[in-house]
């Protein structure tokens, strides 16, 4: 088993005729993902990356039974693309696009409360079930099949941690990059719940970073609802208060919550060991599944 994506997933790629969209559609297919269609307004009837292109996501769903969309649409149009995906009765939409205006995402967030479609992202690397399928831009070769679920706000940090696991022969059920934007679809709690309910996932890695209170909320959720052992990592311990470091999320408010200390102690209180280095995270996981 795995969560959200497997080799039955039928993918439509929104923006498949763009450079990035085409490249990653091909990469996904190479990895084994069942990409069945593209959707690009005005390009209906063409072919891209070897699959038919439709003018609308709805057509791709009707004609090719797509159940999942991966969105590579430029930021100015990505909010609309997500709305289109959410209107198309998909199970899952994964928005890779970075730089979507926050107000567009606030509106998307409102719509998410009205639909059954799950959103992962935006500004995320996507997700992967090793050996089955990947949705997004993660480098497939560093992942391996196994029993560890991974959820992370950061793209390359995910790769780092996965690399540490894979090098020790520890494989993954599914890895989910939830993205570092202020407003995202699937959050830590959602992902933890999915892994907790997945029979095959025997341990969970959660990679957070400074800013916001999502890690604190995740800790509270773990405390109450998660029996699967969790190891954590928090990036940004040395970030000075008030300085922005990349992600809009990574702003230290200066007060109680949002700091690395606050997050680490919340996780520790919930019984989650937090590694000082990525290697230490792998150590904890190794103990869990030993």
């Amino acid at each position, binding site marked *: 088993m795995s969560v959200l994506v497997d080799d039955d997933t039928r993918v439509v790629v929104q923006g498949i005729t763009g450079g990035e969209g085409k490249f990653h559609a091909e990469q996904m297919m190479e990895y084994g993902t069942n990409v069945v269609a593209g959707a690009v307004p005005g390009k209906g009837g063409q072919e891209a990356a070897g699959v038919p292109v439709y003018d609308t996501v709805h057509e791709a769903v009707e004609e090719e039974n797509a159940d999942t969309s991966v969105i590579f649409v430029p930021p100015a149009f990505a909010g609309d693309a997500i709305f289109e995906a959410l209107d198309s009765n998909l199970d899952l939409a994964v928005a890779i696009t970075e730089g979507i205006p926050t107000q567009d995402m606030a509106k998307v*967030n409102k719509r998410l409360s009205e639909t059954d479609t799950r959103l992962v992202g935006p500004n995320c690397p996507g997700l992967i079930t090793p050996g089955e399928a990947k949705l997004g831009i993660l480098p497939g070769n560093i992942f391996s099949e196994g029993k560890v679920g991974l959820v992370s706000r*950061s*793209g390359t940090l995910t790769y780092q941690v996965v690399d540490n696991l894979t090098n020790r022969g520890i494989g993954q059920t599914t890895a989910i990059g939830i993205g*570092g934007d202020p407003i995202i679809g699937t959050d830590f709690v959602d992902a933890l719940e999915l892994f907790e309910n997945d029979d095959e996932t025997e341990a969970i890695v959660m990679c957070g970073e400074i800013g916001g209170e999502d890690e604190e909320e995740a800790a509270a959720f773990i405390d109450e609802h998660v029996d699967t052992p969790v190891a954590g990592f928090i990036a940004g311990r*040395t970030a*000075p208060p008030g300085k*922005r470091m*990349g992600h809009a*999320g990574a702003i230290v408010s200066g007060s109680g919550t949002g700091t690395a200390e606050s997050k680490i102690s919340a996780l520790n209180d919930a019984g989650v060991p937090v590694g000082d280095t990525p290697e230490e995270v792998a150590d904890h996981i190794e103990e869990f599944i030993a």
Partner: protein
Amino acid sequence: MAMKLHEYQAKQVFADAGVPTPSSQLASDVDGVLTAAEEIGYPVAVKAQVQVGGRGKAGGIELVENDEEAREAAESIIGMDLKGYHVGQVLVEEAVNFTDELYVGITMDRGEGKPVAMVSTKGGVNIEEVAEEDPDAIAREHIDPAFGMHPFQARKAVYDAGVDKSVANDVASVLTTLYDLWESRDGSDAEINPLMVTADDEVIAADAVMNIDEDALFRQPELAEMEEEAASGGDELEQKADEYGFDYVRLEGNVGIIGNGAGLVMTTLDLVDYYGGEPANFLDVGGGAKAARIANALDMVFSDDNVDSVVFNIFGGITRGDEVAKGINEALEQFDEIPKPVVVRLAGTNWEEGMEILNEDLVTVEQTLEDAVERTVAYAEEVNE
């Protein structure tokens, strides 16, 4: 991230939307200040136009009654260094007699994923302190972004905050305008602090904050133009990073850090600290950087005199190891002698290709993140021995 308008720019935006503001003029020299003060009429405030908080305490705002005082204030403020920012311009502004100072603001509540309108009768001071010490003194009303702010919500926030009935309608109307601006201009924060109440029950925006979502600047051409002006000031290296389009923060230490992806770069900083070093900077080249961009990054970190050694940590996803290696070679091959030792760790997409290309005469190569950071910290220590 947010683009911050100057006070005078934000005030212009608010005034154009109908928010009452004091009369004011921008000046960049002593004569300009005197002329402006004359036209406006004493007393006036002379206010440094830099985007940092606490200007008053730092000597960036003076209230003056006559030419002499105005001259003194202009001379002391124009050209001063205010918390690291050069003051090039001041706003000369009508001094308002007030009986009350309110706070009104709109921002995005990230936790709720929706905008929030805030009103307090404790304006005029640091609202963050009020938020911490007396959170109930700020009335908060969350807005459904699909509907926008309903008129009843503006009224409710104002009544909940305990604003006096005599000005409640006017404050609600300012709050409504503020929300409309925040929404139509892609604001991240829109604030008036203080919103002054005068003896004859008028309200007037004595300060103005308007930060714009940088991701939305493409559809805010007027504000993007203001950014040109607003961007002036700040650390030289940070300005350079802005030009290059890097996420860059200058820090106090001597270990230079370059990487891809905010989380991984922050982790690299944390490891520098973990191994006993001190990070000199945060520099994220972003996703999919090509050789030229990599070379620029190295150039930037080299230009920081504090830097004694550099760790280059790339985990390729859409960034390719061969491009990174090419960029490093390009940047370093121009030197007769490498100015500062560079440790490189490449992983992920095309890392083997990268290792083949990389000129190992110019850099030290490590296989793991931990080893790379440890080595770089050691180099930095050697320099300082």
